[in-house]
């Protein structure tokens, strides 16, 4: 299965980037999980954590504030003015 290409970006740097099998984030309408092959999407994030599951099964979490999430052909970008790895 194709993997997701995830990058977590804050205003002054790229916080994290790499491959993942699943991304779970909280948008203003609720939690959303993204798997490879997800349709193109653009969502506003509610402040909170973004959980990224790596191909090996480990999980990393990042805190994002005032941001949005974009998905386009298996590339996931979490963009926030402030973001950091938890």
């Amino acid at each position, binding site marked *: 299965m194709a993997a997701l290409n995830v*990058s977590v*970006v*804050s*205003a*002054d*740097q*790229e916080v994290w980037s790499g491959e993942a099998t699943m991304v779970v984030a909280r*948008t*203003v*309408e609720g939690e*959303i999980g993204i798997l490879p092959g997800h*349709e*193109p*999407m*653009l*969502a*506003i994030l509610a402040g909170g954590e973004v959980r990224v599951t790596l191909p090996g099964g480990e999980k990393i979490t990042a805190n994002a504030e*005032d*941001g*949005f999430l*974009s998905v*386009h052909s298996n590339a996931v*970008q979490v*963009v926030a*003015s402030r973001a950091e790895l938890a």
Partner: protein
Amino acid sequence: MGAQLRVYRQKIKTAQTTKKITRAMELISASRIQRAQARVAASTPYSNAITRAVSAVASYSNVAHVLTTEPERVDRAAIVIFTSDRGLAGAFNSQVLREAEELTELLKSQGKSVDYFLVGRKSVGYFSFRRRDYERSWIGGTDSPVFETAKEISDAVLEAFLRDAADGGVDEIHIVYNRMVSRMTQVPVVTRLLPLEVVESDEAPSDKQEVFPLYEFEPDAETVLDGLLPVYIESRIYNAMLQSSAAKHAATQKAMKSASDNADKLITDYTRLANNARQSEITQQISEIVGGADALSSAK
């Protein structure tokens, strides 16, 4: 020591002290350029991501948003000018101010009045010396801009943009800043920030305006655009500030290098003159002694 020689020696000393200062400033800005460039590079993923997202909303949906639609009449425009806090950077500040003046001329010829938002002590000085009005100014921190300032600027600018034209709101926002092309060249750039000129995607959906490619917006396209555009403006302003600071360091380095070179040249020139003066002093002393001895021997 003769008066002439003393004057030359003094001038050499002055040039040497000045050279020490300019050399130090040159080295300092040389080291800061790298850091400033690294910060520009580090903020690039953010602005890229936002630009991509904004153009996705603009080209995959048909929302008419206040920030993207062109108003019919534009009475007032705002210009944000990015200068530095300190001088000693060659044409850095004057070229950006000149560019802003040209833009002002252009806007005024189109019948628009202009409001100014100033960043950096130099632009504030320029305006207050000429007793010209400006809306707001931000002083300090141009050497290493922080995101908070960018947010403050963009909030102020957006507030003016969203205010009604009758209440003194503006309909257009332009930014003028220096962009660093290389260590040797910095060019002033003028960009219209708002209303957005979003570059449309290549394939123009001419006959099927209603059908957009599958793109999901959450909650909906308009809200996404609402949330996205201020962020976009912030990132553009932040980017302009970072670019401007990198360009400032490069301009300072260039200016200080030529100042040090000039000091070197002055030192050489004055050393030659001083040597000349010393030589002629010695010659004069010898001829005085010889003349004196002659006079003494002929008097016997």
